[in-house]
């Protein structure tokens, strides 16, 4: 199990440096500084989405809309294809002289399946973009990080970042007014 691995300090490697800040405003300010310093493998953590942090972190537009659009088109065309195959090709059934390809009557089901598939796209697409479900995350080795879902505001710069230098990162966090700084080991 991963638990035993983290306990062996010899084999563990540095994942990044985690700093805690006192409030949402402080988190936004430090995000701007981290971006200015040129780091890109970093993330901020908060118990709720903070207004304007996307700009401070310089996040690109979410790709989720395109995923949903794709699923919506699939649901729309899939519904038509299904009903066309079943009621026109495979087993045309004359129901009081109505046309086999009875588009107006199919509108509700086409609509419902478009919505259904789009919703699948939105939910599972969001989990996919966020890399969830995730079975192991080094941040959970930090006891303090539990506050991130309660009232803590954190920034972590990963060791993978090309500009990463532990002392410089620490200095940046200290100057930005971090209340707590800690190294995260995997």
């Amino acid at each position, binding site marked *: 199990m991963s638990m035993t691995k983290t306990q062996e300090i010899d084999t563990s490697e540095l994942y990044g440096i985690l700093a805690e800040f006192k*409030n*949402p*405003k*402080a988190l*936004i*300010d430090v995000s701007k500084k981290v971006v200015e310093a040129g780091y890109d493998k970093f*993330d*901020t*953590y*908060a*118990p*709720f*989405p*903070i*207004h304007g*942090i*996307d700009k401070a*972190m310089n*996040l690109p537009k*979410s790709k*989720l*809309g395109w995923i949903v659009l794709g699923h919506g088109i699939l649901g729309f065309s899939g519904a038509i294809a*299904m*009903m066309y195959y079943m*009621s026109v090709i495979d*087993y045309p*059934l004359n129901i009081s002289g*109505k046309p086999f390809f*009875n588009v107006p*009557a*199919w509108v*509700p*089901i086409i*609509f*419902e*399946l478009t*919505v*259904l598939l*789009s*919703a*699948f796209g*939105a*939910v599972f697409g*969001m*989990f996919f*973009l*966020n890399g*969830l*479900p*995730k*079975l192991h*995350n080094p941040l*959970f080795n930090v006891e303090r*990080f*539990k*506050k991130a*879902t*309660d*009232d803590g505001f954190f920034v972590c710069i990963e060791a993978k970042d090309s500009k990463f230098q532990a002392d410089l990162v620490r200095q940046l966090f200290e100057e930005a*007014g971090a209340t707590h700084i800690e190294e995260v080991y995997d």
Partner: protein
Amino acid sequence: MSKYEYVPEPALVKGNHDFASITRLVTDVNLRPTPKLWYLFMLIANALLGVFLLAVGYLIWEGTGIWGLMNPVGWGWAIINFVWWVGIGHAGTLISAILFLFRQDWRTAINRFAEAMTIFAVICALMFPGIHVGRIWVIYWVFPIPNQMAMWPNFNSPLLWDVFAVSTYFTVSLLFWYVGLVPDLATLRDKATDKIRKLAYGIGALGWTGSNRAWWNYEKAYMILAGLATPLVLSVHTIVSFDFAVSMIPGWHTTIFPPYFVAGAVFSGFAMVLTLMLICRKVYGMEDIMTNDHMEKMNIIILVTGSMVGFAYIMEFFIAWYSGVEYEKAIFMLRATGPYAWAYWIMMLCNVISPQVFWVKKLRRHVGFTFFISIVVNIGMWFERFVITVSSLANDYLPSSWDYFSPTIWDVLTYVGTFGIFFTLFLAFLRFLPMIAIAEIKAILPQADPHNYDENQEYHPHVVEVPKPKVDRV
């Protein structure tokens, strides 16, 4: 002072709450030992659930003959209860999706709660189409799956549209609810101290960290889901109304049905949310979050939708006369004066007259009175479906086939039993899941808004001044 100013709103969360105290307030319900009273209520709910299982077991054994169905009323309590429960469900989606799109921040106090109600109400509703076919083992015929008869369902039938609409509605509501729950399950995972809770909430939370890169996609997904759920919820009760409106029965074949059904659904759903909310906030001490301001706003929605329903009742009457169709005219006269006049006037009293009292501000803010009206409204809405279904069928085109419908004990037990399903699920929800959307409530606290901090990152609360009305109006 600028020329244009927003009307100042009172604070959404009362009391001096910070982020941590909100977390404690909500998660304590899930993490502390089970209160004894909960077991008592669960026992009652389980007993009712047992009644339901008994009634359905006997139905499957014996067939739909045990119900009060007869000629010409071949559609009785099963459809009434189905429409009633689905309608109740609609308030949850209205609160979570439509009020979200309209940026009504007060919804965050009740959305988790109302969405749970939606899901459980739709489960209760889905029981009826499942069991009413009599031969429950062939219910799979409604789905387009290959079978030994090599036949497919009839896509021109409103009843089949209903299958797609309600099952899509259930699935999307469940997904929407779960997406909202993920960050809160992560909070519970981090707050839990015992192994079982840590594991269970940990699985549900999927490894959520609160990463702002994740929140970014999350908020997008939430908005898209709200955008999808809004037309969906309107379509669902529209299609439910098609079950009636597309047929040729007098009193059913009207174009007013879709909007009138949707308004009625929201009307009854809000009443149900209020019934549950007023009890739960008292029992669990959530008055800081679910305030009387929320109750007042919901009462206004009840007033609006109740007036829409009342308008529709009167319009139906007018159009029946204006159409000049003899059968249409006759059925409406029979509804108001015929064998089911008692049901019709209960409906009018509960749905049209009773919500009008909410024009009075004092009554809108009166807890006990609101609770009373919320129950009256749901009784009225049950009778609305009864009047529509039974009176039209019992007195249709041919007077020689007219008959009077009475339910049997099994009709009643099945209906009462669905409350067992509902409350069993709802009590489990209150015990094991956060009844308030923790992350969303935190996001509407003034401390969450970076604009309320100065450049030294010090918090300066935005002072909300609620002006005293110049004249004391009632």
